[in-house]
């Protein structure tokens, strides 16, 4: 049975668990011995991801060999220039190269000093709709309305950003450069390559992480021990008072996910669905009276699904709800819930 736990846990960690296997693992995990074994495997699996062989790769020798390879054929093919021409060419080449180099160096130095003096850091703010950002390292971020992302550091050894508000991250895998999110109040999330939703601690919120794939470490830099590692399907909160809570996270992502790969509405009150579609498509759903449309709506959509397709989907389930586009950014909602029989 032990071997089965190893495989099921590994499949869970790598997102390859079928629903039957998921039930099997849940059943086995009721036995404390297996639960503890599974947790131990998960812990080791997560730590092993930092493994990165550090050796002397003899870069300079490789570089020299490379230049030899690219230059050798040229040297054979080129006819020998006449002595006079050679002198002229050499002098001209020398001047051009160094003058251009010096000019470029000066320009870049000036630019560097300018940047340093200003001390600005790239910042992305989502004003009134979800904002998508593609970071230099290949990571993707969907910022919720009102959220701000500041790029603090993007170096060879680290990637660091600060978040205010909520955002969904899809971080590119790079074990050498951990991706760290400053959530405020000395609370940080550290990831290697995964997708998850993060909420900062600003404005009284707790630092919160909901993990979709991979694993994320949520910790406080000031208080040792306040440190939780979350895996796919888990949600953890660390508030400024350093109280930790952990629960299972339903993958039915809310409006923040809109615009990512998919959006899943599961038993979502239809009025909430309208709010989220409004955010996603930049439109407003309005009604002349309080309709209290709390009937549930279930639908899966891709990022490419059009607004019309979604409106038709609503109409097909609830024909008594009328949705009329009154102008490009407003949709008038009328009627009541009564599902089609």
């Amino acid at each position, binding site marked *: 049975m032990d071997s089965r736990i*190893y495989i099921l846990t590994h499949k869970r960690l*790598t997102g390859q668990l079928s629903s039957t296997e998921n039930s099997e693992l849940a059943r086995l995990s009721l036995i404390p011995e297996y639960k503890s074994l599974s947790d131990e*495997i998960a812990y080791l*699996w997560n730590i092993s991801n930092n493994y990165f062989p550090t050796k002397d*790769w003899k*870069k300079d020798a490789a*570089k020299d060999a*490379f230049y030899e390879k690219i230059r050798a054929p040229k040297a054979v093919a080129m006819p020998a220039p006449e002595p006079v021409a050679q002198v002229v060419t050499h002098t001209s080449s020398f001047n051009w190269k160094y003058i251009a180099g010096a000019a470029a160096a000066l320009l870049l130095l000036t630019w560097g000093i300018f940047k340093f003096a200003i001390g600005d850091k790239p910042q992305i703010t989502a004003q009134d709709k979800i904002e998508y950002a593609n970071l230099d*390292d290949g990571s993707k971020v969907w910022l919720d309305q009102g959220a701000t992302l500041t790029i603090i550091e993007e170096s060879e050894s680290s990637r660091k950003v600060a978040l205010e508000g909520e955002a969904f991250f899809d971080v590119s895998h*790079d074990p050498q450069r951990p991706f760290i999110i400053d959530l405020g109040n000395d609370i940080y999330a550290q990831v290697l390559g995964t997708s998850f939703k993060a909420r900062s601690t600003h404005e009284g919120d707790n630092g919160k992480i909901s993990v979709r794939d991979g694993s994320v470490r949520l910790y406080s830099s000031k208080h040792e021990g306040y440190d939780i590692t979350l895996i796919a399907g888990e949600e953890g909160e660390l508030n400024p008072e350093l109280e930790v809570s952990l629960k299972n996270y339903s993958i039915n992502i809310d409006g923040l996910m809109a615009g990512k790969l998919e959006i899943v509405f599961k038993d979502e009150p239809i009025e909430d669905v309208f709010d989220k579609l409004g955010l996603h498509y930049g439109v407003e759903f309005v009604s002349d009276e309080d309709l209290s449309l709390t009937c549930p709506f279930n639908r899966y959509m891709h990022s490419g699904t059009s607004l019309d397709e979604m409106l038709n989907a609503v109409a097909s389930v609830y024909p008594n709800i009328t949705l009329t586009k009154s102008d490009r950014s407003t949709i008038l909602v009328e009627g009541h819930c009564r599902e089609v029989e």
Partner: protein
Amino acid sequence: MADILLYCVIYVPWRLMKEKFNDEEILELLNSNDERAIELLFDRFFDYLCAVVYRVIHDYEAARDVVQDIFLDLWKKRESINVSIALRPYLRRAAVNRGLNYIKRKRIIPNDDEDAAVDIVSQVPSGQAYMEKDELETRIYQVIEGLPPKCKLIFGMSRFESMSYQEIATALDISIKTVENQISKALKILRSEVQLFMV
């Protein structure tokens, strides 16, 4: 004297500037036949890519050759190359694909087993501070290095390249059952070899 002046005016600023070039600028240099692009690419990515390839093929010299070939290819296609994502993930993908091709081409899927494994038990450090996370990490890395070759290969493909059982089975032309067995074996070795650290 002139040499010192040139060193100060050209070389030092150039060394400083190297850190500042972004991916787009490096590609522009490459597109315009400027060898500085290769210099920058080597400095920035060579060690990283070698380590990435090594984690897949576990052969020091071959990893260096594979990465050199990537740079040669970049240089050959320098005028037409068009990269739409950041360079690091782009090169990483190229490195992993070439590493996997190398395995296929050379048919180097190793036959296990136990004899080929490094004697990892003898590498257990002495002392009592087994609970330190850094030491645990170091120990885990030693164990990974010492896994039997086939086990290490399959474990690495799953752990570091996020390849599914099916993808690994296809890449190595083995059954999914074999992949499962090897993953399970790797995890068991890992667990048993770090027990002391898990106090």
